[in-house]
């Protein structure tokens, strides 16, 4: 097994193009998978491309109309970056992933490439209308996040590509929240979760809203019917407008963590809670 640890993006992309490798960033998904396989006598591992020394992939920069998060940005770095309220939800997710040890290692890009239905970053990126920047030796392309996450643990990442950054467009006057439901306090995988972004006008009427639910379908989903119904409504009344039908597009499953029926009902409650939360923070700010 080869272990590559390039320090430049160009070298990393060359290795990626020429070898069949597992990309390694924070290792918080790669190592548990390796351990699980070994436990049942499967020790083989692909060559490893460790990108953690590639400086181009680091850093958070705030531009006029967007925030750019380098692929190696960890949950902890996101949480302490002091980003505007639009990103509150994503920051809440960062603080709810695993425990501090995992937050200090795990990267935002690793989370989306793993593409677990329970990945806490994913509904946030949908609600933020994020873009994913991908690079290969052939060049760079940018995809809307919704087009990147294609299925259960599947993404549009090509075998020769590396995620280089997440691009999060700004939205004036907007804020967000994230709610996660699990069976214990820390180190817990979501049973259901909701990320919501909202902007309001001076009369507290909703001018923009994006709500995404995770762990209730193979890929987290936006609730577009609900979003349409909420536009123009007073935020203070938004929670009361949520109806079961707005979640009809979700397709949760039964597993060891919960039943499908429960997930759906819980998601509905969480969506209301998220809207109530946002209304409360709006009210607090006004006061």
């Amino acid at each position, binding site marked *: 097994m080869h272990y590559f640890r390039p320090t430049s993006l160009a070298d990393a992309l060359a290795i990626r193009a020429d070898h069949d490798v597992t990309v390694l960033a924070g290792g918080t998904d790669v190592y548990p998978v390796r351990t699980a396989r070994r436990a*049942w006598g499967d020790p083989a591992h692909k060559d490893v491309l460790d990108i953690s020394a590639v400086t181009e992939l680091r850093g958070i920069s705030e531009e006029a109309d967007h925030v750019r998060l380098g692929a190696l940005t960890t949950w902890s770095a996101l949480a302490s970056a002091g980003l505007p309220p639009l990103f509150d939800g994503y920051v809440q997710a960062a603080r709810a992933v695993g425990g501090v040890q995992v937050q200090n290692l795990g990267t935002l890009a690793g989370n989306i490439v793993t593409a677990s239905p329970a990945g806490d970053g994913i509904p946030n990126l949908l609600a933020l209308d994020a873009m994913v920047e991908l690079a290969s030796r052939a060049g760079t392309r940018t995809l809307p996040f919704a087009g990147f996450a294609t299925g259960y643990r599947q993404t549009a990442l090509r075998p020769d590509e590396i995620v280089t950054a997440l691009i999060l467009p700004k939205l004036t006057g907007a804020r967000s929240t994230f709610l996660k439901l699990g069976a214990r*306090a820390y180190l817990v995988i979501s049973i259901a979760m909701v990320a919501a972004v909202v902007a309001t006008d001076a009369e507290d009427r909703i001018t923009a809203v994006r709500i995404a639910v995770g762990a209730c379908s193979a890929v987290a989903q936006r609730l577009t019917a609900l979003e349409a119904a909420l536009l123009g409504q007073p935020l203070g009344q938004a929670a009361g407008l949520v109806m079961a039908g707005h979640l009809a597009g979700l397709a949760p499953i039964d597993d060891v963590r919960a039943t499908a029926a429960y997930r759906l009902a819980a998601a509905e409650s*969480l969506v209301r809670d998220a809207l109530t939360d946002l209304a409360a923070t709006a009210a607090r700010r006004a006061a």
Partner: protein
Amino acid sequence: MLDRPAFPTVSLIVNGTDRTVAADPFASLADTLREGLGLTGTKVGCDAGDCGACTVLMDGAQVCACLVATAQAEGRAITTIEAADPLIDRLRAAFLAAGAAQCGICTPGMIMAAADLLARNPSPTRREIEDGIGGVLCRCTGYIKIIEAIEAVARGANAFAPVAEAGAAVGARIARADGLPKVQGTDRFGADFAPEGALWLRAVRSPHARARFTLGNLAAVKAAHPGLEAILTASDIPGANSFGIFPTIKDQPVLAPGFVRYRGEAILALVGSRAAVEGIADAALPITWEVEPALIGVEAALAAGATPLHANIPDNVLTRGYLETGDVAEGHRLGAATAEGRFRTGFVEHAYIEPEAGYAIRVGDRIEVTACTQAAVMDQEEVARVVGISMAQVRIIPSACGGGFGGKLDVSIQPLIAVAAWLTKKPVRIVYSRTESMASTTKRHPSQIHALMSADAEGRFTAYEMTGDFNTGAYASWGPTVANRVPVHATGPYKVPHVRNATRAVHTNEVPAGAFRGFGVPQAALAGETLIDDLAERLGIDRWAIRRINAIDHGDRTPTGQILHASAGLPQCLDAVKAGYDTLMAEAAAHNAPGGRMARGVGVACMWYGCGNTSMSNPSKMRITLGRDGRLTFLNGAVDIGQGSSTVLLQIAADALGLPTAAFDFVVGDTDRTPDAGKTSASRQTFVSGNAAKLAGMDLRAKILALANAGPQARMSLDGDRLTVEDGEASRVIDLSVLGSEADAIVLAGEGEYDPPTTALDARGQGIPYATYGFAAQVAEVEVDRLLGTVKVTRILAAHDVGRAVNPTLTEGQIHGGIAQGLGLALMEEYLPGRTENLHDYLIPTAGDMPEITIHLVEDTEPEGPFGAKGVGEPALVATAPAILGAIRHAVGVRMTEVPVLPHRLWAAMQGREAAE
């Protein structure tokens, strides 16, 4: 395949020192620290980020060393528990003084996480402390004393545990006698040491629950892998290829002989270099499987025509337990109300943070096994049996044990490494992976209980009747113990004249169920306590009051016909929680009055637990020696698995002898040196071994007093090799160095042996199964989210009759830890073979899940116990889950009969109730 790859070097700064080490760049940092640099203070509990035992600081930030590639540590500053650092020193002292380290396996990770937290935030709130250590699991302490220790450091408080004077050790909160190495990271657990050049052993395990298999050409595999020393199969076992707890039921093979009965059963042992045994894929081995339909669950195993697991047990029923007193039909007739229920519980995993590990070495015609264990002498018997040698040829040296809770009573690794070391004549070590530990070692028995209980109009219980099936899995393990302990305890600590309890332990093609804190009693208590709440509701009696009316008391008769002459403190326990219960009830009523989403509820439950083995001789022997050099040595065969027996027994021995605890050296568990203390189980060490320790102390004292010609009130002190005995005005100094001889450096020795007085149970379960019982009453307060079905346990009041708290800090620690496990049983823990076989999917409580706990220690002296003490290890757990279930019911009106009460289960039950309304 390359068996011995040459690795590049990596340079890192460890605890301030530049270190360069050759290592696989993809090996985890945890592995490189431990195996490459010998820094074994960093522990590995899961190798997957789930337990935090491997927490170290990387450039000052806490990370799981098992998730960091060694190459990624290049040039980084790594701080481990071995570091010399003032903040870490303060944490060490605080952990020691507070009793925050029990088994100590989580302690290094906890201390590193706390150091990270306090370096960033010197005065954290409680919530911030929970956040800071939330990624480190502890299975022993319930986190309470850990958080207290961190708070103490944040406050700048000086951490001192009291030092007990001679004669004042019992009752003192002295620090653990074995605590210092635990907080320094120098305690040696099973995976922490092995002889230079030891071979590694990896067991190849069945992925099928029931299958036949044939093996192809293993010689060819061996030839292809030069690093392999041997591939062992069933036919290589030199002695009997079978082990088991009961002398008459040795049913479990070391390596399966062509037929497996559960997923995870070992079929082959690969022995060789670590790279070789870990590098061979199971799929590359010549194993041909013929899968057979498996019997999963007791219904399948009991169905007509079910294929037996064991030829000698045609109906798959391993044992039946039975107890009958009075006339249960008559008892029900006398009742004004009868409650009935069916209850289910699943497999529960011990989840000690230390997976099984150790090594074996052949020394001439003897074999020595150093491993984590709860029962050294039982291991000695099993090893002798499978290697085919006498017990005298086997030496068991227990390593520090990173938690047991019953799961390390059975042998696991010992027969494998002993056989391999015997045959290869080389030292052989093994370290189970977390998944291997979970898939192959014992669990708590799943249960299905049907019970009926009646009470008269005044609330006096008239009858209790239960039948319970316990899924004992593929092999017997402790199945018979569970089947026998449950009928005795199922009625609960109450006066009930008419009782009939019947149990069965049933074989299935699932992981063997064995001993786990409480031996079936926690499962039975869920049923009984729920029925009591039913009766209270029917009869319009308060739930605390109905328990108080029926609480068993001094002079009362148990369902086995035993009269409790002394130390029956349940009434006091109930009285101790009464005021708190009333307050919580009033607060809940006020909270719930306006309605709303969050419902508060309060529950109460009681428990009892017989200390020691059920109706069986279970003696313990202790020995204290005084050497020519003045060395006072306590030879204590009782293994301390974190519960504190090394400390408690020392306190007892010290006071019996009349010297301070600090004067003692101690040797624990080494079968060549220490007499048999029996196993660390059944909450017996404080009571049974405590008596032996006391007798040993008294014996040595008597010998010293005789030598000094002093009276019984004399006071002693030891200074080097001079022993001073003062008796009133008279004082005598004994010069130990002139006594004894060169050949025999022991001048005086005290010995004590104790076997609790019990009698056999007859066919109707009548007799004296235990010499004494522990009692408890617990009150739980919960908050339930009506929409999400989530439950937060907010407060627990726990009153425990422990006879005498020999060390209140340790007693409280046992209760905290028991409550945490009870909470896990009630709300989150469910082992599903193949699905929750890691600590990611199998959930145990974290620091953020614990309630505020108030403990009332009731000391209803046990005259038969050492200084009045009895056991507390298991009792701590039993009452918690039923109290939580009662509280949930009080909050939202649903009666849960299956645990764990996961959010979706509670939600479904609440939906069902709404539908019915």
